[in-house]
């Protein structure tokens, strides 16, 4: 019988930034890992995939998403969220700790790991909070949390507003080699803010969220990185000014890294002209000059990674007055296709660089042995059809959420298959039935 543990992918366009590969080649998988060769015997029994015309890339790594559980299973579950991730080409995702209960304790992290073992179809790496209850007052027990399985620590959208606490949190996390992920928002400047402060907020009469609210914290984080020598990763950067501050910090060899969300590479505040609550995101969509600067920063390496920033909500939660709608957009399924059209199809960057920022870029931020086709590594990979046309709609949506703003959009590339540990999770752009 055909041995499901042996896979031969024939004739794919292999793009593997970790190993500098960009060539048409065969790829071999045995017992869930990439291998250099298969024996003639093994080839006979192997499952053979003809991948002519498809790109074979390492599975993508997402540093910033929410999967609903625990506490918000009406929005998303580990099953639906990881299926959506797989459909978007992600094989490893880092989840944010603003769960219910808050992921600031060992028990909740253990619960997440148990639920993921039972239901997740991609690798889920939970982050914990930096401080208890995300309150920015007392440090979370990050040493014990690391033992329980966290990959990083962040107070996510609460941020840590007190610089002394932030300094100590960085030092403490560094003790355990934990990277601190920081959502950069000076909340004193964003009270009641609904969207980017600019001409659109003035026209729409919505409270503005100035770039400075982010840039001030990006700056203070760089200063604290210099003081503590601890690693800080700046989450979903949205402004040209932030990119410039990070560029200087990196030139000064500060231990900072950064990410940008797909939506910020794709859209601007002008998209909010019709008060579309699905585009109410944190940080807010900014102006064309910011979008252009973020793309430049992605190209020159100032920004290390593209993230989904998947923040599922139910359609009911978003079906209300703009002021009352929760922040966040569901983005996992469309992340690659949207980024491809915004960046590659437009000629801003080649597909190899896009894949770099989705694989080795994020993997290096957290020191993960993911995002690679190296021999011996887990066989997490995707096949991408770069020449197609498909429309994302509620029929092919796998996420449980009701707030993907790109519903109804047509894309020119699509994830064809996704393999996690050598097992097909998505095949022919559909979930593989277990």
């Amino acid at each position, binding site marked *: 019988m055909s041995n499901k543990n042996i896979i031969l992918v024939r004739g794919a366009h292999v793009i593997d930034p970790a190993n500098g590969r960009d060539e048409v080649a065969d790829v071999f998988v045995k017992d869930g890992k990439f291998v250099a060769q298969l024996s003639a015997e093994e080839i006979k029994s192997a499952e053979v995939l003809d991948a002519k015309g498809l790109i074979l890339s390492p599975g993508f790594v997402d540093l910033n998403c929410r999967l609903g559980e625990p506490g918000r299973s009406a929005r998303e579950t580990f099953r639906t969220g990881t299926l959506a991730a797989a459909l978007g080409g992600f094989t490893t995702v880092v989840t944010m700790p603003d769960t219910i209960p808050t992921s600031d304790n060992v028990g909740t992290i253990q619960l997440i790991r148990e639920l993921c073992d039972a239901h997740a179809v991609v690798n889920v790496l939970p982050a914990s909070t930096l401080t208890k209850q995300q309150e920015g007052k007392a440090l979370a027990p990050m040493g014990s949390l690391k033992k329980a399985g966290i990959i990083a620590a962040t107070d996510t959208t609460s941020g840590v507003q007190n610089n002394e606490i932030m300094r100590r949190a960085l030092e403490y996390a560094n003790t355990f080699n934990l990277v601190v992920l920081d959502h950069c928002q000076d909340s004193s400047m964003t009270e009641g803010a609904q969207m980017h*402060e*600019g001409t659109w907020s003035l026209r729409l009469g919505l409270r503005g969220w100035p770039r400075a609210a982010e840039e001030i914290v990006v700056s203070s984080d760089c200063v604290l990185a210099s003081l503590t020598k601890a690693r800080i990763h700046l989450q979903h950067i949205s402004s040209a000014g932030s990119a410039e501050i990070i560029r200087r910090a990196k030139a000064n060899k500060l231990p900072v890294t950064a990410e940008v969300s797909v939506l910020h590479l794709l859209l601007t505040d002008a998209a909010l002209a019709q008060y579309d609550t699905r585009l109410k995101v944190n940080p807010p969509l900014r102006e064309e000059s910011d979008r252009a600067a973020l793309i430049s920063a992605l190209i020159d390496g100032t920004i290390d990674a593209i993230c989904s920033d998947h923040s599922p909500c139910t359609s009911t939660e978003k079906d209300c*007055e703009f*002021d009352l709608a929760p922040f966040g957009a569901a983005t996992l399924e469309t992340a690659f296709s949207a980024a491809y059209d915004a960046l590659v199809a437009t000629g801003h960057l080649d597909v190899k660089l896009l894949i770099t920022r989705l694989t080795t870029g994020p993997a290096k931020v957290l020191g993960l042995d993911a995002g690679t086709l190296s021999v011996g590594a887990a066989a997490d990979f995707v096949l991408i059809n770069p020449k197609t046309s498909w429309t994302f709609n509620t029929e092919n949506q796998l996420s449980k959420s009701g707030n993907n703003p790109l519903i109804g959009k047509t894309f020119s590339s699509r994830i064809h298959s996704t393999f996690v540990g050598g097992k097909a999770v998505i095949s022919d752009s559909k979930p593989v039935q277990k």
Partner: protein
Amino acid sequence: MAQQTTWTKKDLTGIETLSRAEIEFLFDQAEKFLPALAPGKGLDLMHGRTVVNLFLEPSTRTCTAFEISAKKLGAEVVSINTTASSLVKGETLRDTAMNIRAMGVDAIVIRHSSAGAPRYLGEVLDISVINAGDGAHEHPTQALLDAFTLKQKFGKVEGLKVTILGDILFSRVARSNIHCLSKLGAQVTLAGPATLVPLSLAQAFPQVRIVHDLKAALSDADAVMLLRIQHERQTTTHFPSLAEYTSQFGLNAERAAWLKPNAVVMHPGPINRGVEVDSDVADGPRSVILEQVRNGVAVRMAVLHLCTSALKR
């Protein structure tokens, strides 16, 4: 381009989406309703129609004006204020509106603290939705009655210089007036402290002029529109105190003398006497404040009549 001769909108959510022809068409209709303002002269154009005033933010003047306008047209009116509303019990705006709709209502007049709420409701409902003020976004009937009053005073709005003075940043009245006056060909100047009149407004509204010097803002104006300084929003971050505001930007007799001889003083009400305007100016010969109130009924009659007439029956 052919002159617009009909009104096809079931909703009035803002001035930004109206054309000049639509505004002028509405003014013609309002003009025809002026005689109906006399006691005992009500009409029956909306006989059998029901209008619900859904006011989710406190209002006396606008709510009353809409109520009288609807009644002058022969409609039945129900007014719901924020405390009577089930919204405080956690019902969504959609559910509240759908329930009102299910009771056979023809129009909802909504005031809401959230910008964009009337537009949202207009998309949800197949009955008329009239914006009576949404957050800091628009207050279209106020701008229409203001421009209607200017037209009455000066014969036309085209070419007039109008200064809007005060809290522009948080003002829906200012936004609607900027759109309305610009569309009708007036030149708009925004004046006040830089915290309430930021220079960025000139990027959002390229047709306006921003002036922080009061004398310069007043000396060539045909009309000055004062905005109410909002006690409830008065924070120490946008201006130091009411007294400081009055001393720097309040319109008193001395400053009113900077105006051209025939210039008029306008105010959307309610007036804070002695804060943004002194009583001798508010009650003086330049003031058209009570004409604004009176015209407000005719303009709102026109809005209710035109929007409900555009409904598919």
